[in-house]
C-alpha cells in the first residue's frame, strides 16, 4: 500500500450499515453491529467498544426527551382534536392544501430561524393538527379523493415540516449545528463568528422555500385537476343517464 499509515479497515462499519439496511435487518441491530465491528477493527477491545457505545448513547439522551409530549397529544386525540382540526378547515372558505402547507412552511422556517426548533414537530404539531387539516382541505378540493392521494397529502405535510425546520434553524446563531461548525473549524485553527455562518444559511433558506413551495403548488394543482376530471366524467355520465 502506498499510504500504509492510513488504516482503511474501520470503513467496514459503513459497509455494515449499508448492507444491513439493504437486507432489512432491524436498524438498531445494524447500527450496534456496525459500531462494535468498527471499534474492533479500529484496535479497541470488546469491553472498550461496548463502553464507548454506552457512553455515546448516554450522552445523547436529550434527543429522545421530546416523546414526553405524547401523553398530552394522545389525551387530546381521545377528545377529538384531529376531528376538530379537520372541522376547522372544512368550515374555512378558500382553504386549500397548497395554501395551508405553504403557510405552514413559512411559519416553520420563521420560528426555526428564531431558534424555536422544538416548538413544532411530528408528534407536537404534524400528527394532531397539520396532517388532519391537510387531509380535510384535500377532501374539500376533491370529495372523491382516493386513499393513495390522501396518503400523499399526509406525507407531504410531514415533508413540509422537515424542510421548514432544516432550512430555517441554521439562521439562528446559537443552534447546535452552527456551534458544531464553529467548533470543528476552531479545531483546525480557523476562527469564525457564528453570525457569518448564520448569514450564509439565508440563501439556501430562500432556495428551500422557493423549491418546496413550488412543489406544494404543483402537488395541489395535480389534486385539483384530478378532481376536475372526475367531476367532468361524472357530469358526462349523468347527462347520458338522463
Amino acid at each position, binding site marked *: 500500500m502506498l499510504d500504509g499509515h492510513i488504516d482503511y479497515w474501520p470503513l467496514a462499519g459503513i459497509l455494515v450499515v449499508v448492507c444491513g439496511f439493504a437486507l432489512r435487518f432491524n436498524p438498531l441491530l445494524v447500527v450496534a453491529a456496525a459500531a462494535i465491528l468498527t471499534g474492533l477493527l479500529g484496535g479497541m477491545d470488546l469491553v472498550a467498544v461496548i463502553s464507548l457505545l454506552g457512553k455515546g448513547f448516554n450522552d445523547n439522551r436529550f434527543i429522545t426527551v421530546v416523546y414526553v409530549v405524547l401523553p398530552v397529544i394522545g389525551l387530546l386525540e381521545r377528545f377529538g382534536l384531529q376531528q376538530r382540526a379537520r372541522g376547522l378547515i372544512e368550515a374555512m372558505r378558500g382553504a386549500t392544501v397548497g395554501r395551508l402547507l405553504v403557510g405552514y412552511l413559512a411559519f416553520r422556517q420563521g420560528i426555526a430561524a428564531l431558534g*424555536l426548533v422544538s416548538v413544532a414537530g411530528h408528534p407536537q404539531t404534524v*400528527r394532531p393538527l397539520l396532517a388532519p387539516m391537510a387531509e380535510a382541505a384535500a377532501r374539500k378540493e376533491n370529495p372523491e379523493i382516493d386513499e393513495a392521494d390522501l396518503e400523499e397529502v399526509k406525507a407531504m405535510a410531514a415533508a413540509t415540516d422537515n424542510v421548514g425546520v432544516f432550512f430555517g434553524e441554521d439562521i439562528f446563531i446559537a443552534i447546535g449545528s452552527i456551534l458544531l461548525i464553529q467548533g470543528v473549524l476552531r479545531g483546525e485553527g480557523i476562527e469564525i463568528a457564528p453570525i457569518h455562518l448564520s448569514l450564509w444559511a439565508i440563501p439556501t433558506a430562500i432556495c428551500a422555500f422557493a423549491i418546496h413551495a413550488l412543489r406544494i403548488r404543483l402537488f395541489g394543482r395535480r389534486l385539483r385537476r384530478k378532481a376536475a376530471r372526475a367531476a367532468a366524467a361524472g357530469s358526462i355520465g349523468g347527462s347520458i343517464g338522463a
Partner: protein
Amino acid sequence: MIGITALYFVAGLVFAAFAVASARDPDNPRRWGNAAFWALVAVSFLLGDRLGDFGNGILVLLLVGLAGCRCLGLGRPRTTSAEEREAFARKLGSKLFLPALVIPVTAFAGTLLFSYTPLGAAGLIDPRWVTLVLLVTGVALALAGTMIWLKPPLSAPVDEGRRLMDSIGWAALLPQMLAALGAVFTAAGVGGAVGAMSLAILPESNVFLAVVIFALGMALFTVIMGNAFAAFPVMASAIGVPILIKAHGGDPAVVGAIGMLAGFCGTLLTPMAANFNMVPAALLELKDEYGVIRRQIGTALPLLACNILILYIAGFLL
C-alpha cells in the same frame, strides 16, 4: 437550577409509566417485550449517569436485542371510538386547541422572556436547555389543564401516550443510537480513512469538482449516518479545510455553513434519520413507510444542486 437532569427525570417517569401499563395490557401478545423495552429506556433516563459506560453499553445491547428479535408489539389501550371523537369535537369545539397550543406558546413566550428580560439572569433554568425545559413545562401545564377540564380517568394520559409510543416503537431510539455510532466512528479513525480516500480520487486543481465532491460527500455520508452532525467533522477535515479553505482559499464561513446544509439535503433522503422520516410515517399511519422520504426527494435534489452553486459562487467567486 432546572437543567437536563430534571428533564431526564421526567422522561424516565413517563417511560416507566409506559412500561408498567404495557406489562398490564392483556391485549398485546408481546406485552413483556414492550414492558422490558420501555423499562430499559426509563432506566437509562433515571439511572444512566450511575450505570457507568460499560453498564450503559450493556443496556444498549439489551435494547438492541429486544428490537432485533421482534419482541415489540402494539399495545391496544382502551380509547374512544371515531364516533365518540366526532361527538366530543362538536361539543368541545375550538377550545380543544387551547391545551395543544399551550405547549408551543409556553416554549415560545418563555424563550423570549428568558432571552430578553432579567429573568434569564436569575439562574432558574440552565441556559443550554431553555427551550427543551420550557417545552416540557408546557407539556405539564397542558396535561394538568386537560385533566382538570375534561376529567378523563387518571390512567388516560399514560394509555393514550403508550398508544402513540408503541406505534413509533424502536425507531424512537435510532437517532440516539446513531449518535453513539458516530462516537465510535470518530474514536476508530473513520474520518482519517474517508479523508485519505477522498484525496486519492480528487483532481488537484479543479475547484468546482472539489466543491461538488465535498457537497455530495456531505449528503452521502449523512444518508449513511442519518445525521449531518456526524458527517460534518469527517468531511470538513477530509476536504473542507485542507482543500477548499487552505489550498484554494475558500471563505470558511461559506464552506462551513453550506457544507452543513448540503448534509441536511441528505437527511431528507435517508431512513436512518428515523425521527424525521420514519417516525412521522408511523405517526400518520402511512401504508408506505418510505412515503415521507418519497415526497422529499423532489425538494432535496434540486436544493443540493443550489447548495453546490451557492458554495462555489459565494465561497470562491465573490
